[in-house]
């Protein structure tokens, strides 16, 4: 644990990061920006896993291993999302949310 820093301060920082991500997710109009906001949200939750593991159960490793799996799933998700975005850009020449109607039905 970090000397002089309580768990409350770290959880405050991660909550702020999480809601910045939510704000970006709602207000952005571009697929790549939305993807970046999702990365922010995922990272905030990963820090929470690690911090709670370190501060409350320091002799266990479950939080660290879970965050490893979260990072792996996030990497797979980003690769798939980027490939979908590039494919969409080839078909309709745009990555704005309002232009994407071909996947609706």
């Amino acid at each position, binding site marked *: *644990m*970090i*000397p*002089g*820093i309580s*768990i*409350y*301060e*770290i959880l*405050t*920082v991660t*909550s702020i*990061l*999480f*809601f*910045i*991500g*939510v*704000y*970006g997710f*709602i*207000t*952005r*109009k*571009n697929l*790549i*920006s939305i993807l*970046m906001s999702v*990365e*922010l949200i995922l*990272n905030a939750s990963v820090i929470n896993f*690690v*911090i709670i593991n370190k*501060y409350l159960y*320091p002799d266990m*490793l*479950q939080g*660290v*291993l879970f*965050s*490893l*799996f979260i*990072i*792996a*799933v996030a*990497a*797979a*998700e*980003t*690769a*798939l999302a*980027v*490939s*979908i*975005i*590039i*494919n969409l*850009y080839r*078909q309709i020449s745009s*990555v704005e949310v309002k232009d994407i109607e071909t996947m609706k039905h």
Partner: protein
Amino acid sequence: MERVIFYILALIMIVFAIASVTSRKMLRSVIYLLFVLCGIAGVYFLIDYNFLAAIQLTVYAGGIIVLIIFSVLLVHHIEMELEIAKPSKQIITTIACLLGLGVFLTTIYAHEFNVVENSLTTTTAEIGTKLLSYDAGGFILPFEVISVLLLAAMVGAIIIAKGRKLEERSQKSEDSSI
């Protein structure tokens, strides 16, 4: 000393996260996201999870950011500015996020955590043993499942990104060869 470093890291993370979701230049907002991810790796270094910090730096800062930069360069003109949401929508979203943050913080500060004072360090060997152990509490099954998931994601990404044009082109070349 660690206190000061943590406060600096927290300030960097929050400022660059806000810059990342509000910047109107696409490439700049990706670079701000890179700074946020490096700050998170710094937090991992501070709490002595060196392996996780290395993973964060290689997978996120090294892999995902490069992937996003490539996709930005493929689909955007660099000087193009993003359109932003209407001011009314921005204000409503800000209020909703602040409300949610308030709920989170009241819940966190009302909860009594049983913090264990410790200065244990975790070695990479411990993480590896735990990840590959067959005993109760071992993580061998998720480890194998995640490897299949990564393979499936790789094949899927190649097939989706290959698109239709390549198929047509190969068909044309086959026709001309016949």
